[in-house]
């Protein structure tokens, strides 16, 4: 164990290399899990991936830079519509179309992020909450304004057929999983690949100078300003990065749902994203991943639970938001650090038993 560690030290001592290493291991495990799952579970994993990307961006914004956003559902809507419009024009059959659509979603959301982030940087507490909540309600309604956005019934999203993917991808997947790639597993692989890339980027960003500035602004804005940090600029950058994540998540969501309509982007979506990051622990990417897992898998279990309690199907469907709401309340009242934050001392104790290295307490992003 000790030897292995010393062998790996050159890699693990550089943050970027370390993050890439962890991400690669995680990605391989994820691919193996996806490859051996049923199509139904693959759709759940794909859902978990895009929720995790959005939650990752939100946890960075709220946990690191201290800004609350209840408008991430609206930003996902912007990403979803941007991606859908590109896929529609391009045909959406090839892998290139898919990446073009996702890049467009990210780019458009970057612009929207700046536009929203500038005024948002001047607000705090309940004001930014109310303003972003209004954003979450207002933006999806734009679809009813312009014919090109398809109105209430939305736009259909073309998705690439697995048979038209490049041969090397098909071979690669077959080589690793011994299962032919199909549309469902393709979307799950794509989601997790992009999730890994996003998280590496976010982890790196948060350990960089930019991340330190955000933390400084969050912890004490007056001191940060005195130390020469431009408050507004730091906040706008954080909002923009976060919006880009939401855009990518929205684009992936469009492909998975195969429909982009205003009804998908409710207040509830924004609130459940918040629940996910609060549950996992504000500021923690691992927490965001756990929260996203809960979003993707809980509704199924909660509905079953509700039905076994004798509720009708429609009542049982309401168990999920109740759980999310309780999570928000209980975490704030009992464990403000969320799951990861609360487990951290525990994990630290376990690892201090297995290792004699010094115990400098480090903050995980």
């Amino acid at each position, binding site marked *: 164990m000790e030897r292995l560690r010393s062998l790996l030290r050159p890699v693990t001592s550089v943050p970027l290399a370390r993050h890439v290493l962890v991400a690669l291991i995680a990605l391989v495990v994820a691919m193996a899990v996806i490859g051996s799952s049923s199509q139904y579970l693959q759709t759940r994993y794909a859902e978990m991936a895009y929720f995790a990307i959005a939650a990752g961006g939100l946890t960075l914004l709220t946990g690191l830079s201290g800004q609350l956003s209840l408008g991430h559902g609206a930003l996902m809507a912007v990403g979803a519509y941007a991606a859908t419009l590109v896929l529609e024009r391009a045909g959406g059959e090839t892998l290139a179309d898919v990446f073009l659509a996702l890049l467009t979603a990210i780019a458009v959301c970057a612009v929207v992020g700046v536009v929203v982030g500038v005024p948002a940087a001047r607000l*705090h507490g309940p*004001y930014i*909450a109310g303003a972003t909540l209004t954003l979450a309600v207002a933006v999806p309604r734009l679809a*009813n304004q312009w014919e090109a956005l398809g109105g209430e019934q939305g736009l259909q999203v073309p998705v690439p057929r697995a048979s038209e993917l490049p041969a090397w991808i098909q071979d690669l997947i077959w080589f690793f999983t011994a299962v032919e790639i199909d549309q469902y597993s393709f979307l799950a692989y794509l989601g997790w690949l992009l999730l890994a890339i996003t998280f590496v980027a976010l982890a790196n960003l948060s350990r960089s100078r930019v991340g330190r500035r955000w933390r400084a602004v969050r912890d004490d804005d007056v001191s940060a300003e005195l130390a020469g940090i431009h408050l507004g600029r730091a906040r706008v950058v954080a909002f923009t990065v976060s919006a880009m994540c939401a855009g990518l998540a929205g684009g992936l969501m469009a492909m998975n749902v195969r429909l982009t309509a205003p009804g998908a982007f409710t207040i509830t979506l924004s609130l459940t994203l918040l629940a996910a990051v609060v549950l996992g622990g504000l500021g923690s990417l691992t927490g965001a991943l756990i929260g996203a897992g809960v979003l993707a898998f809980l509704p199924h279990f909660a509905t079953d639970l509700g039905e076994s309690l004798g509720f009708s199907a429609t009542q049982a469907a309401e168990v999920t938001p109740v759980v999310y709401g309780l999570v928000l309340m209980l975490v704030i009242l009992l464990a403000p650090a969320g799951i990861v934050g609360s487990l951290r001392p525990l994990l630290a104790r376990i690892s201090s038993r297995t290792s004699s290295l010094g115990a400098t307490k480090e903050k995980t992003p």
Partner: protein
Amino acid sequence: MQQFLDTTLGGLVLGAVYAAFALALCLIWRSTRIVNFAQAAMAMVTTYIALSLINADVPYWVAFVAALAAGFGLGALIERVIIRPVEGKAELNAVILTLGLFMVLHGLTAITFGVQHRGFPAPVSTNAIEVGDTSIGITPFGILSIVVVAVVMAGLVVLFRFTDLGLRMRASAFNGEVSRLLGVRVGRMLTLGWALAAAVGAVAGMLIAGGDLVNPSFMDPFVIYGFIAAVLGGLDSPLGSVIGGLILGLSLSYVTGYVGEHLAPLVALGILMVVLLVRPSGLFAAAAARRV
């Protein structure tokens, strides 16, 4: 011209209800410096309680009073049990807490009462009033709504301006430490503030439900519109909340009537951003500068 008149009258009735709702937010803000994002859900719960009573043949006005009482109790309970631990803590905590409460109340109501749309009666006619041959775009129930909101407002003014209790409540909200030293039971005053606010919210719920369909989401627009009306008036000022409510009600009515219903939230967002960025303390707050 006829349409303009109808739209204006409709906007005034809507504005009166927004005003009541904003007033409730303002009461809570003044006492605990918290924006209660669960206000709409609380009002929805009390409205459902009234509906169950009405369906059990209880007279409308008895059910109305019951809704108020239920709101009062719910407000007090929530302040004591849930809000007390986060009072004076980081702003973010209270915001997330009330949002969680919003989801819980919403879901529990749906589980208890079902999610179907149900008719909610009104105590007086909801047909347009006719003058000679033409009918004007306001109903007896609309007029009643305005009167009820005016009575609630007058009641609150009397309470805060002319009673000892009101004075103690104002003192607790203004400076808890000093009030405590002077023998005011501050905790109790804060609970009373929440209870009163929830009762006012319950009134708004009854007024918006009357003669319409209700379902567990029927108050959702108020989460944002009530907030915007309150911010418009400066959150701190009860009179400002009322004027903010009327301005918002009229604006949204014109937008819906002449442009399209789907743009209403967008216009509301525009109004909110302009107020927050140009005059952050609201249109009617005292001049004291405050960073938002």
